[in-house]
């Protein structure tokens, strides 16, 4: 493997970015720095989005609904041809894991910045992916693929190791699941589960699977080139989730031993090699008390890739362009310190509903160790058409403790007006005992106290009451020095957004 060479020259002439929002900006920034011209595509409602305004060229490709624009692979390839783009970067979501689109790009002789169509197809089919993983020696959650007769159950459970889980074949959403902690509970539980499944679903088949206790989501970043090199760039822990959506990610994982990390990296490399992978990819695992189990492989750039970038000081988008153009993957650098990402989603922290509206103003954090990947601008409208993630706040510091303090400090500086965001709940997670100690799992958001601290509520009450006093009793307020504009001194920011009926 060669190290990066600054004299390589731009690997492509012009790249079409088949995405929107922060990830389109992310890709454009690196493309611009590499001397690659950028082409933005946009839907009717996105004309003023930053990804359009920051591009060298921009072409409208259809209506607001993704199916009419960002998912229109045919239209996008046409634009690539028209504008002379020799590469397409799909970002994440939309067409990024669409094997057919990757194949179409190849057929049209436009480089798809990602793995081969075949690799996407294999990893996109969950059953197929598990099969390939098993064959490549990547550990899966132990379990039986078929129902076994009652008499074979105890030895099967022993083989898997307690606690085990009995799962109705026809079940879903947690229904029809029973946890068995030792052999004495096994047969009674099996019989009850069977009877329940029969009556609930009309299908009495019950499978045996390892019950993963205290599951943590830990994933490995890999980059593979066309010369057979597969490099692994450590892990990211993404266990702070709600509704299976990641909210806070960190790297490294605070409980991963170096030996196990090496094992996970090696397993990930084997999997990548098994499918002839080229590009950046992420292998997701369940980690549980010193063991790890394959979940799936994401054959694209991951939302949370910046925390890997900060620790390794690598530009993963640059590497994607490089390996796609045939350059050798960069040699892995020595990671440093600790990095945390906080996703800023437009959503109500209590209801987790999307929060729609117009961004009236924003204050962004700055200073040492703070990075903001944001699609926001004043006047930005949060619409129901697209993902509710508005921005990502990434911090890096010398150790985990400092990174947490820095993340809290940066969140204190960040303010977004016009919609409600998920940052309050991220603040709660960062300040919670389980997170601070590192001893947490994917249930963390269900277990912690989500209310703001009492002194903060008290100060808010005073500020709100005082503001109302000034408005109500119409005291002529002297303008604070440096306040600047001719606004009435106590003018409140009026919410353009209509808030849901919850707040009354």
């Amino acid at each position, binding site marked *: 493997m060669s190290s990066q060479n600054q004299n390589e020259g731009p690997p492509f002439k012009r790249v079409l970015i088949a995405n929107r929002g922060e990830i389109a900006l992310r890709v454009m920034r690196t493309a611009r720095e590499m001397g690659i011209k950028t082409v933005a595509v946009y839907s009717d409602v996105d004309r003023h989005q930053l990804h359009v305004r920051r591009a060298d060229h921009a072409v409208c490709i259809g209506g607001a609904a993704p199916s009419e624009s960002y998912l229109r692979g045919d239209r996008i390839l046409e634009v690539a041809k028209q504008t002379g783009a020799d590469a397409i970067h799909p970002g994440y979501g939309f067409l990024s894991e669409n094997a057919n689109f990757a194949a179409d790009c190849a057929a049209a002789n436009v480089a798809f910045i990602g793995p081969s169509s075949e690799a996407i197809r294999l990893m996109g089919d969950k059953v197929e992916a598990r099969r390939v993983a098993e064959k490549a020696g990547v550990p899966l959650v132990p379990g039986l693929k078929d129902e076994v007769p009652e008499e074979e159950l105890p030895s099967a459970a022993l083989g898997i190791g307690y606690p085990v889980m009995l799962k109705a074949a026809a079940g879903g959403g947690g229904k029809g699941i029973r946890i068995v902690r030792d052999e004495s509970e096994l047969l009674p539980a099996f019989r009850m589960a069977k009877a329940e499944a029969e009556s609930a679903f009309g299908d009495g088949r019950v499978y045996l699977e390892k019950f993963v206790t205290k599951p943590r989501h830990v994933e490995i970043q890999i980059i593979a080139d066309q010369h057979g090199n597969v490099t692994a760039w450590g892990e990211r822990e993404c266990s702070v989730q709600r509704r299976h959506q990641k909210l806070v990610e960190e790297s490294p994982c605070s409980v991963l031993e170096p030996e196990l990390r090496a094992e996970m990296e090696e397993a990930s490399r084997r999997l990548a090699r098994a499918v002839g992978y080229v590009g950046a990819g992420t292998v997701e695992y369940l980690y549980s008390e010193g063991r790890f189990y394959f979940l799936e492989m994401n054959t694209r750039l991951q939302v949370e890739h910046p925390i890997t970038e900060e620790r390794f000081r690598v530009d993963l988008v640059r590497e994607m362009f490089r390996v796609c153009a045939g350059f050798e993957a960069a040699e892995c650098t020595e990671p440093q310190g600790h990095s945390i990402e906080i996703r800023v989603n437009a959503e109500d922290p209590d209801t987790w509903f*999307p929060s729609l509206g117009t961004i009236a103003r924003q204050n962004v954090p700055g200073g040492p160790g703070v990075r903001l990947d944001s699609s926001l601008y004043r006047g930005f409208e949060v619409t129901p058409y697209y993902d509710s993630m508005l921005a990502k706040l990434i911090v890096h510091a010398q150790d985990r403790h400092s990174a947490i303090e820095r993340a809290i400090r940066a969140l204190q500086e960040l303010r977004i007006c016009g919609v409600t965001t998920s940052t309050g709940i991220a603040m709660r997670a960062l300040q919670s005992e389980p997170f601070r100690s590192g001893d947490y799992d994917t249930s963390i958001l269900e277990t912690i106290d989500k209310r703001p601290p009492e002194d903060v509520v008290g100060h808010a009450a005073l500020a709100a009451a005082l503001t109302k006093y000034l408005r109500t009793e119409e005291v002529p307020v002297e303008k604070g020095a440096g306040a600047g504009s001719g606004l009435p001194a106590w003018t409140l*920011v009026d919410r353009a957004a209509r808030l849901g009926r919850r707040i009354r």
Partner: protein
Amino acid sequence: MKYFAHTTLGERCFEFRRDGRRILAVETLEDGSSRTFEVDLSPGSDGAVSLLVDGRNIDCLIERAGSSTVVQLLGERVVLEVEDERERAAAAVAGHKGGLGQLIEAAMPGVVVDIQCAEGDTVVAGSTIVILEAMKMQNPMHVEADGVVSKVHVEVGQAVSAGELLIEIDPPEESS
């Protein structure tokens, strides 16, 4: 005049008095005693309000959202309602709170994917009544207080806009 701030952690009561540039704030505590502090307010054209409370700094941003006030400070977002003495008196005359019906409205534009009640059903506070799909997410909408479904205005598969009335709920019979 007294100002009452209703928060998730209870009610706070303040009175204010001008003293030149400064403002004196008097908070009445639960036990009837009170404490006074000096407040210095600096409102900015960037929407932020800096309060110095006896020299201690409270840097916040205040938005109104309907009848509520949203205060952002120290990375926290506090939603509360502030009422002054006159408003409280008016509300008391207008009648007792609670026992009124609820209107379940769409919190966002979306598609109704599930309706978990029918007209005449008794529903309990906190139960899911409708699921709206928006932004590729299933968003359950909950009942806020016990009651009886009096009218269902939508059906499954229907697209609704934000604020659209979905379901009407009457108060439970024994309390109306």
